[in-house]
């Protein structure tokens, strides 16, 4: 197996970026006056949510490409990106709950953002279950892409539907609802920490996607080799 230099650089780079981001979050960023230390969850919470959304977007575009061109690589990207997105959305939901316990006095509320994140989680879990249930690779790719497109289209509709009920989730970036609880104004140091966390997580996503794609290619090769041995 030949060494993959680009992938190694990316892996080490994302590790260093994450360490730096941790330093910024815990040392550089100032303590939030009202909420205290628990507010530091915010940086990785937002970054994980961002990567989750990005990963699902990538999976959606890859699915469309697969339907258009029948590209096998696109199908692989759709699978791998969905898996990574699922992991990051899970991190986003859990970190949000940890923050919500002291601030909202509850682990969970049926707020639009929380519910939408949960529904997205369910959608992509269902996507992976569907893939497991279909044996033929061509059909699996096509059907999964169809489901991916429908799933992706339904997320904003779900968000709009829950919006019809009231929201208490803070909107830190952009204008927030006046009733939002746990909102705060970002200082420049906080903003820089957030932006750096977003960068670190995005690079991490790139590294993970590359690793996962490589793994998928290798496992396909193993399956082919096993078949060749069986038929020989």
């Amino acid at each position, binding site marked *: 197996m030949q060494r993959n230099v680009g992938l190694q650089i990316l892996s080490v780079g994302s590790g260093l970026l994450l360490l730096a981001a941790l330093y910024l979050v815990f040392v550089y960023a100032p303590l939030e006056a009202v909420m205290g230390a628990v507010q530091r969850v915010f940086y990785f919470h937002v970054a994980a949510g961002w990567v989750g959304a990005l990963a699902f977007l990538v999976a959606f575009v890859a699915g469309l490409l697969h339907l258009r061109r029948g590209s096998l690589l696109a199908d692989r990207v759709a699978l791998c990106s969905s898996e990574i997105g699922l992991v990051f959305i899970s991190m986003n939901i859990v970190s949000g709950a940890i923050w919500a316990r002291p601030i909202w006095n509850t682990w969970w509320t049926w707020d639009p953002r929380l519910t939408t994140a949960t529904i997205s989680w369910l959608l992509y879990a*269902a996507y992976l279950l569907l893939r497991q249930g279909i044996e033929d690779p061509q059909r699996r790719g096509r059907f999964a892409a*169809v489901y991916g497109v*429908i799933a992706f289209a339904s997320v904003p509709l779900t968000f709009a539907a829950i919006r019809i009920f009231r929201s208490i989730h803070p909107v830190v970036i952009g204008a927030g609802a006046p009733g939002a609880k746990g909102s705060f104004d970002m200082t420049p140091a906080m903003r820089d920490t957030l932006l750096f966390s977003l960068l670190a997580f995005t690079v991490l996503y790139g590294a993970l996607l590359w690793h996962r794609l490589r793994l998928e290619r290798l496992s396909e090769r193993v399956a082919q080799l096993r078949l060749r041995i069986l038929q020989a």
Partner: protein
Amino acid sequence: MRAAMARKPRMLRVIGALLWKDLLSELRGRALLAALVVFALLTVVVFNYALDLERTVRASVGAGVLWVTIVFTATLALNRVFAAEREHALHEGLLLAPVERLAIYFGKLLSGFLFVLLVAVVVVPVFALLYDLPVARPLNLAVLLLGTLGYLLPGTLLAALAAHARAREVLLPVLLFPVAMPVILSAVRASQEVLAGSAWVRIAPAFNLLVASDIIFLALAVLLFDQLVDA
């Protein structure tokens, strides 16, 4: 022997034939409809006891019960409509024919819609009686039709998709519930407001979103159904 000319049949006629065939099979076999009606009635009755229905919350809780009943019934109907065809590889008979693949989708959609409506004709009046709610309001009937359609639009597509997978009977609701969430939520919300006697301004957001969801799922089905057919 006279050679019959095989013309390309018109789509509406094909959809009509599919609907006629499903209905006739069902009325003779009586496997599905009776079971669905009993199941739906059970749901309505069980919820009546499970939930404490005070006057003040009756409209909002009642709307939820009504929609849970419809969604469960529709899911069972979808599973059944596709399972029945698979038993004798009848779907292949449809795919062999030179008909628009979309006609098959619409035939299945309308069959499912008709089955759920037939169940609703029995169950909704019983529900109105037990829960003492004005379900017959025209606007509520419109919400019922649009919501059922909105659930079956992606439902029919996903049932065709799940039909090829392992454990398909369980897989369908797992795939469908999160996708149909906007339809379910906006239909419940719209029904709540209508049953509580709210003004149109309070009904409109949910109602409009329901219509929008229907249109989007219809467009997606039209664009994507071809991909589910092998050749």
